[in-house]
C-alpha cells in the first residue's frame, strides 16, 4: 500500500536529529473496524508526528477487524538458501513466514537465521534484513 505520508516529507523536519520509526504492529490490535476509521487514525498520527520534530512515521501498521494489515511502504529482504541469494520486495514488517512463502520455501524444511540469531516464523523483518534459510530435511 502506498504511504499516506512519504518518508521524505518527515525527513525534511528532522533538523539533523536521529529519526524514529513509529510502528503500530498488527498484534497491537487497534480498535478500528473499517478502513475509513483507520484512515482517520492515520490522520491523527500525522498530526502527532507533525507536532514532534524528531519522529518519523515511515512504518505504520493498523489491524482492522483483527484480520487485515494496513501497511505503508515496502521493504527489501535478502534471502540466502542452498548457496543462492535472492532479494525480495515485501510489505514493510512482513514476518519470516511471508518471506519464505514468497521465496517458495516450505517453512517445514528450514530453520531461519538473521545474523547469528535463530528466528521464528512470526518474527517481523525490517528493510534490508538478510536472512539465511538452513535446509534441515535429510536425504540420506
Amino acid at each position, binding site marked *: 500500500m502506498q504511504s499516506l505520508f512519504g518518508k521524505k516529507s518527515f525527513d525534511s523536519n528532522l533538523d539533523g536529529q536521529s529519526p524514529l520509526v513509529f510502528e503500530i504492529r498488527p498484534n497491537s490490535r487497534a480498535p478500528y473496524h473499517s478502513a475509513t476509521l483507520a484512515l482517520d487514525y492515520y490522520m491523527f498520527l500525522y498530526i502527532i508526528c507533525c507536532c514532534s520534530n524528531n519522529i518519523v512515521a515511515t512504518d505504520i501498521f493498523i489491524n482492522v477487524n483483527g484480520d487485515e494489515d494496513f501497511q505503508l511502504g515496502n521493504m527489501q529482504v535478502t534471502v540466502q538458501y542452498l548457496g543462492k541469494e535472492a532479494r525480495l520486495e515485501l510489505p514493510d514488517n512482513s514476518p519470516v513466514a511471508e518471506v519464505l512463502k514468497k521465496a517458495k520455501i516450505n*517453512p517445514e524444511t528450514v530453520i531461519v537465521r538473521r545474523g547469528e540469531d535463530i528466528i521464528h516464523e512470526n518474527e517481523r523483518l525490517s528493510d534490508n534484513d538478510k536472512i539465511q534459510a538452513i535446509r534441515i530435511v535429510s536425504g540420506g
Partner: protein
Amino acid sequence: MQKVALAEPARCKCGDKAVYFRRYEGQYLCAKCFCDSVEKRVKRTVRQFNMIRPGDKIAFGLSGGKDSSTVLYIMSRILKPRKDIEFFAFTINEGIHDYREKSIPIAKALCKKLGVKHYIFSYKQSLGKTLDQKMQEVREKPNIIQTACAYCGVARRYMLNKKARDLKATKLCLGHNLDDEAQSILMNYIRGDMAKASRMGAVTDYSTAKSGGEKFVPRIKPLRSIPEKEVGLYAVLKGLEVQEDECPYADGIRFEVRDFLNNLEAKHSGIKFSVLETFDRMRPIIRELFEKQKIEITLCKNCGEPSSQEVCKLCEMWR
C-alpha cells in the same frame, strides 16, 4: 535509524526471547525451553515404550547427520549415569564419493567429545564393493532396478543388524524422527505392505515371526515423536556439528511422500502427529492379524542371515 516498536517481540513463557514457534501447540519457546522440551519428550518416549531395560547393550547407528548425532547426544546424557547399561556407536560407510567421507570425521569427533566407543564398517569390506561401484554396475544393465536407495536400504539394514549383533548389542538405536516414521507409515500403506507395517513402531522387532526372529536386534527410535525440523533446530542450538549435505543418490518414493507430508503440514499443522498416532492405535490390530498368519523366517542359504525367502534380498541384489 532508531526504532520504537509498540509491539514487543514474541516471548517464551519464561520471559526470554523466543527462537521457535511450535505451531502444533501454539507456543513460543526460547532456546533453553525448546531444548528442554525436546529432551523431556525423548525421555517420555523411552519410558512409554519401555525401550531400555537393565542390562541392555545399546548400539547407536551413527551417520554423522543431524538425527543420529542428536539421538546419540541426548541418549548419552540419559544413559551415562546408568551403570547397568552399556552403549557404543558405529558408522556404516556406504562408499559414496564426496558424501560419506565428510560425515565420518564428524561422527568420530562427536563420539570423542561424548566419550563413546565408535566403530566404522564399510560396504566395501563386508559386501566387496562400494555403493558407487554397485551403481556403476547397475547402470550397465538397464533392465534391473536403477534406484540407489533400493540397493542401499537393503545393504544398510543388513549391515546395521549384523554388526550390532556381532558386537553383542541387545538394542539398535536409530535416529528416526517423526517425519521418517510418518513417511514409512504412508509408504507401507501405499505399497500395501502390511507385514512391514506390523513390525513398525517405537520398538521394531520380529516377535510376530514363527522362528528366526531372534537373529534380529530390536530397533529403538527415541526421536519418533520429534519433528525433523525440531531435531535440526536442537542440533543447531546445541552447536552439534552435523553433515548438512543431501545424499547424491536421494531419490525414490520416500522423497515424494516427504514433500507431500511437508506441504500438508505447512497448511494443517499437526498432520504428522496424526499419522503417527492413528497408526499407533491401529498397530495392535495389524499385529494381531499377523500373529495369526505368522511369517516363517528362515536362514539365507548363501549368507546364513535371516530371510523370509530361500535367498535373502541382500544376496539377491548384491551378490
